[in-house]
């Protein structure tokens, strides 16, 4: 019983995901190639760089902590939340919906950034 429910859920997710991908597939491929370097956010000197990152739907963004001090990457609206990242540790999140996603470091809340997904 439980299994059939979860399979149904998975199928629904797949259909939705494919729908979203299908609609935007061309622009996604082009911008991903053009802006490949921008899919990374580096944490340096207590700041996110770039602080604002614009990406197409479906992009996986990876944050890397290059400070000597741990940081976190936490969505202000509760969409994503990393564990604490020590030096050189990474966190990735795939943005499957369009929108603006503000985030901050929950240890040093003055550190803020946003990902704009188009």
């Amino acid at each position, binding site marked *: 019983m439980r299994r059939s429910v979860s399979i149904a859920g998975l199928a629904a997710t797949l259909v939705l995901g494919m729908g979203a991908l299908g609609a935007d597939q061309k622009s996604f491929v082009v911008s991903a190639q053009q802006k490949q370097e921008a899919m990374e956010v580096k944490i340096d*000197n*207590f*700041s996110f760089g770039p602080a604002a990152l614009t990406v197409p739907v479906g992009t996986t963004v990876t944050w890397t902590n290059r*400070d*000597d*001090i*741990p940081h*976190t990457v936490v969505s*202000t609206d509760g969409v994503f939340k990393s*564990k*604490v990242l*020590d*030096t050189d540790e990474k966190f990735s999140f795939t943005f499957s919906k369009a929108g603006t996603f*503000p*985030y*901050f470091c*929950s*240890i*040093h*809340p*003055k550190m*803020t950034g946003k990902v704009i997904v188009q």
Partner: protein
Amino acid sequence: MGSKRKDEILHDHNHDGIDRRGFLKCMAWAGTGAFCVMQGGVLKSYSLSRLPKLGPKEAMGELSFVQISDSHMGFNKPANPDVAGTLKAAVDKINSLSAAPEFMLHTGDISHLSKPEEFDTVDQILKSATPKDVFYVPGEHDVLNDDGKQFQERYGKGSKGNGWYSFDKKGVHFVGLVNVMNLKAGGLGTLGHEQLEWLEDDVKHLKHSTPIVVFAHIPLWSVYPEWGWGTEDSAQALAYLKKFGSVTVLNGHIHQTMQKVEGNVTFHTAASTAFPQPQPGTADSPGPMKVPAEQLKSVLGITDVNYVQGQHALAVVDSSLA
């Protein structure tokens, strides 16, 4: 190590194979804290490094305790590859005091990454200190990943909310506050409504002449908000303390000593036992500061406070390990 006199640190090459003399000479700032003495109701704080220069009169009061802060156990970057060594150095300084302080305050960032073994190491090192009682408040590094659950289990027994509490020693009312939880994007340290209400109630029935010592991790005054060095709602907390003749606020977090007097309130921040941070605005970020070897010991500290009963104010002076 624990019971040795401070001079011995400089001649100790043994144990783990590290040349501790060389290391601690380089880490001249290492392992400091503050010795706090209440004198005439004034809390005086001396960096542990200045203690040899203290006369017996200056070191004596009705109550003395030690503040240490920001041990960051687990940190191993170039700014200090041996934070255990520098914490031990601080304990040795404390143990070398002629009159043993009554207790210790640890103003947070005990650990670097909230790992159980980091807390264990600090507990182990502090066991060798003469003062047996240690009162803790959490730093943001102590409540990572679990909303402070582990900190509460280890250090927060009998505390309220996220770990705040108060106690009395020789007529002085001590209040430990928590301002590192539920931090909001773009904001500073936060005490929160529930804790503020508790504080108001906690001090309501105290006599105005009672000396108050408040300790918390992030400064309760605006040291440098651009780097998050302040607490959003500290003004409300201080408003509840206005009626008292002597209020001392002890904080950590900024890894350097600073003092400020505002009316009846004296604010102090203690140095870190682990690594120094830059002065506000003097660097791109508040990250760990690598300082020249000859300066190192002068920038880590321990605060020691002494209190003379029957009078009113407190005074604190921070001292370095040099």
